[in-house]
């Protein structure tokens, strides 16, 4: 479980401006990785436009990998991350969003509402162990 210190570190990371320049990040990744990640990101953007967009074989992750990687790199302890690890974190985040939305929905339904509200999120976070890491981190 997260210590208070770790939570503080995360909150600081989210709040403080990022210190390391981007060229450092470039040195860490190979050009091929960047191209592949960009290709994946493009795949995602194509999906977002037009309702007729087909599900491409490359579109395994809905979330853009370059953005996920940039987030990961804000952690000063992280030096390098393999392409696969970035992908899995993106995928895990997708599963997390699904999970928290469904769990919060239970509270909306209890309140006989069809609209998910912020308080439903708060209730879910308080009630469900797996979401304990979120306590005190949201605005």
């Amino acid at each position, binding site marked *: 479980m997260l210590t208070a210190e770790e939570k503080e570190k995360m909150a600081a990371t989210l709040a403080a401006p990022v210190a390391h320049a981007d060229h450092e990040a470039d040195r860490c990744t190979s050009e091929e990785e960047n191209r592949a990640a960009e290709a994946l990101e493009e795949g995602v953007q194509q999906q977002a436009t037009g309702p007729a967009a087909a599900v491409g074989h490359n579109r395994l992750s809905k979330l853009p990998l370059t953005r996920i990687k940039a987030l990961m790199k804000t952690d000063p302890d992280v030096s390098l991350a*393999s392409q696969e690890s970035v*992908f899995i974190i993106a995928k895990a985040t997708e599963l997390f*969003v699904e999970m928290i939305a469904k769990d919060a929905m239970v509270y909306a339904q209890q309140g006989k509402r069809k609209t*998910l509200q*912020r308080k439903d*999120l708060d209730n879910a976070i308080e009630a469900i162990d797996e979401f304990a890491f979120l306590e005190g981190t949201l*605005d």
Partner: protein
Amino acid sequence: MAERPEDLNLPNAVITRIIKEALPDGVNVSKEARRAISQAASVFVLYATSCANNFAMKAKRKTLNAGDVLAAMEEMEFERFMEPLREALEVYKKGQKGKKEVSEQKRKDKEKKTDSENDKSREEDEEEERMEEEAEAENEVEEEEVEN
């Protein structure tokens, strides 16, 4: 080009779509709820990264790998994610392998073309190719290490 944390939120449209696909039809999501979920998702990424990085550091590796992330999921009590993540990873790896083969094939085709154009310096080319292949073999080993 420094990135500010505010710029590093996950795209709203994608978050909204994931939420909508998870919930039954006819359900709405307030703007505040959407914003909170998006923020929570960012926190999740940071938490998972930090956790995974601990495993990498324990193993004295500088590169975070997929195994570290899976171990992090278990540590974070998201075991339910592990099986779907493993499956997605398999599909992803196959896709990556296909891309690598395509780019390698393109490179070989390009080399063949160059060879036929330079008949006089054919011997030189052959030697160069041999040296390149050796270097490539080294690179492949490196790449595999990174991807593991």
